[in-house]
């Protein structure tokens, strides 16, 4: 979307942005000023806004640079996929510190975590923040989709009447926005020069102090242990539905035996299997990101096989120790391990979407080989495990 057809997501908002009205005259969807003004000057509607900065283009809300407990709690909830899609702010122009017409303009996405990361790293600085409408998605993902892109940037510059606010023509765009923003096209269409800032907002102070020059390290995407571990909650929650379905299936199927269906067995072995499967999945979700660089193989499906063998083997051992009737026979144990390996390999393959270095061509190549093998492995595992119940 190029920002042409936006209707506010707040109550009673009308489509307004292309109507030619001044941003501050219209409903809460554009300009980024009205929702703060709605509560009356001096009583901002949002805790992270502290007053209004007057500009020739109207009042601009000033954001705080200190994150509060509610900002951190919101970020934590987003990591756990709680209200993740609603974690957005109004697109438009914001101020940080006491900016003048000479102050730099930082471009961001209307994902609250993106804005929080930016403003908390601008502590003690003066500037303008131009928040694009990316439908609440972070800069990199939105750039990949084109919502953080040339069209929206050019549109937003005009919508907030940036030329009346600043006297220069530079826009500091986060480097990862480059997938969607074409610097030369922005220059051609708006007259503004895109300066690509560092990948990480925490490098912004150093970037600014160096005269808007990024050191080579600031241009590289990392994927260190911390970057990987923060992904665990959202991966867990996203897969939870499928994991619960599979765990329930094991619970019910465990009731089957030579003598037919037994509720008693469901209560003992069934509960054991369901719990084992759930813990095996959680272990996979934690171990894969933690061990990613050290797992043999470049393909994620291969890395997942190792995790599956570790976790499947451990759960069989655990089952044997905890209660002898869970894995009563070796075909049941082997079937179980095969199934866990297939699930681990598949979830590892899915983790490609959360990484910072996989490519579409690579994922496609890997999937052509891995998916049929994973399906066969899972089917063989379940068949063996089921057969073992009747031996």
């Amino acid at each position, binding site marked *: *979307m190029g920002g042409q*057809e*936006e*209707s*506010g*997501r707040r109550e009673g908002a009308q489509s307004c942005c292309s109507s030619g009205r001044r941003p501050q005259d219209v409903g809460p969807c554009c300009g980024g000023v009205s929702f703060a003004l709605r509560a009356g000057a001096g009583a901002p509607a949002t805790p992270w806004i502290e007053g209004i900065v007057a500009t020739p283009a109207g009042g601009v809300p000033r954001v705080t640079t200190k994150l509060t407990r509610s900002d951190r709690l919101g970020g934590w909830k987003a990591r756990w996929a709680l209200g993740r*899609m*609603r974690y*957005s702010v109004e697109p438009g122009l914001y101020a940080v510190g006491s900016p003048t017409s000479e102050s730099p303009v930082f471009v961001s996405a209307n994902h609250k975590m993106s804005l929080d990361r930016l403003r908390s790293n601008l502590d003690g600085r003066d500037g303008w923040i131009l928040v694009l*409408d990316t*439908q*609440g*998605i972070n800069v990199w*993902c*939105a*750039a*990949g*989709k084109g*919502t953080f892109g040339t069209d929206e940037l050019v549109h937003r510059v005009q919508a907030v009447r940036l030329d009346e606010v600043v006297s220069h023509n530079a826009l500091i765009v986060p*480097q*990862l926005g*480059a*997938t*969607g*923003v*074409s*610097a*030369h096209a922005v220059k051609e269409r708006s007259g503004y020069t895109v300066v*690509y800032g560092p*990948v990480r907002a925490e490098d912004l102070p150093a970037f600014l102090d160096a005269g808007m020059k*990024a050191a*080579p390290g600031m*241009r*590289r*995407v*990392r*994927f260190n242990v911390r970057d990987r571990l923060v992904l665990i909650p959202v991966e867990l929650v996203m897969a939870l539905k499928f994991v619960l379905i599979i765990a329930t299936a094991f619970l019910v199927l465990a009731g089957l035996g030579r003598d037919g269906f037994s509720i008693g067995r469901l209560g003992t072995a069934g509960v054991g299997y369901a719990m084992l499967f759930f813990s095996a999945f959680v272990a996979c979700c934690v171990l894969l990101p933690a061990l*990613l*660089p050290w797992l043999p193989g*470049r*393909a*994620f499906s291969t890395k997942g096989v190792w995790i599956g063998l570790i976790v499947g083997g451990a759960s069989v051992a655990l089952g044997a120790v905890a209660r002898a009737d869970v894995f009563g026979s070796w075909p049941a144990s082997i079937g179980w391990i095969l199934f866990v390996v297939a699930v681990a390999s598949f979830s590892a*393959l*899915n983790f*490609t*979407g*959360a*990484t*910072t*270095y*996989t*490519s*579409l*061509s*690579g*994922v*496609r*190549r*890997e*999937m052509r080989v891995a998916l049929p093998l994973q399906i066969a492995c899972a089917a063989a595992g379940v068949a063996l495990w089921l057969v073992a119940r009747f031996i």
Partner: protein
Amino acid sequence: MKQLRYLRNVSTLKLDVETCIGCGMCTIVCPHAVFVIEDSKARIVDLDACMECGACAVNCPVDAIAVRSGVGCATGVIQGALQRTEPTCGCSDKSSCC
């Protein structure tokens, strides 16, 4: 990051050295240092580090770079296959906003 390498020789990245004007935009926007500028021309020095994000091609003022860009995401490929569209990741739920 050196440890984290994906499959070899899969990237669709192509650079037309003849067209290249050596402006260096590709070295600025690439998050994996795939390009360097040598003798006023860009050169691909690390093809296997390319994640096909497309930032270089989008920001090349003379269209000297071509890459089939998209999300390197298995879920996205599956969703795309099911919906018969390009690979798309599920992180944007249009109905939830504008």
